């Protein structure tokens, strides 16, 4: 089954890179709506399997945790191009997350659920 990925509001070039990478990995990247709707509306409307958020946007960690709790079956990934790290909320983990290095391989593994479950730092929901 093809993984449907919703990419949040990143810079256009970084977003294009994310989309290129995920499409190559066999995912279906949902089209950008140009910021017309907020991420919650888009999740409700498009029912993605994975949501990728920009960790550099203020409040994104709270948003990622909230999405993970509200949509238990969705993998939420908050990644930062500046800090080269990402926080992953796997599906059905009640808001638990782990932080790992942001690399193409790690991102694809987290998105497709194919990676080893190496948790560098497991954080319980707050």
């Amino acid at each position, binding site marked *: 089954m093809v993984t449907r990925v919703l990419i949040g509001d990143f*810079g*256009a*070039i*970084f*977003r*294009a*890179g*994310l*989309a*290129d*990478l995920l499409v190559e990995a066999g995912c279906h990247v949902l089209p950008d709506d140009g910021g017309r709707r*907020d991420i919650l509306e888009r999740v409700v409307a498009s029912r993605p399997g994975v949501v990728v958020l*920009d960790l*550099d*946007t*203020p*409040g994104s960690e709270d*948003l990622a945790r909230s999405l993970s709790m509200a949509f238990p079956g969705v993998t939420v990934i908050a990644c930062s*191009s*500046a800090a*080269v790290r990402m926080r992953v909320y796997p599906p059905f983990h009640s808001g638990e997350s782990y932080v790992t290095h*942001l*690399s*193409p391989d790690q*991102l694809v593994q987290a998105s497709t659920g194919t990676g080893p479950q190496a948790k560098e730092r497991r954080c319980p929901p707050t």
Partner: protein
Amino acid sequence: MGPIRVAVFEGDEIFRRGVVSCLDEDPLLEVVEQALSWGPVPADGPVAFDVAVVSDTLRAFPACPLVMCVGANGAALEVGQGNLYAVLSRRTLAPDQLVSAVRGAAVGLRIMDAAAVHPDFDQRSLQVLRMLADGAAIREISSSLGWSERTIKGVIADVQREFQARTRTQAVVEALRRQLI
């Protein structure tokens, strides 16, 4: 005349993919080489491309027109220094701007992206400025972006201070004038 041959040297693989996918969309451009960094062998050998898109974190650069995508260090760079033909902000760069800069560099046009010389303007400030320009009230911006009204006011105050603008309207006009939004 064939396509403009472009090389992309960028340490962030995801950003590099984005650059390449945007350039590939343009029929006048052909990406002939891409790598994490540029390592000339030999150091003064001829390059097989017309323009290189590079990041400001590289240690060495090819001797051809350069289009540089910069992060927070952009203010230290000036277009016109040597073979630097364009300085673009990584955060705000749009695909069309990138393609235009590469095409321009190939024919000797030098471009300075206004956002690249204002590294203090983060994405949050630009979002708020865009919404103000669209006529949104503080409450609407707060609701839309999910930040408190106090945070939004703080962002606006920072922008006004940076522009030495007395009013929000003047700050928005200044942002438009500098092509930040």
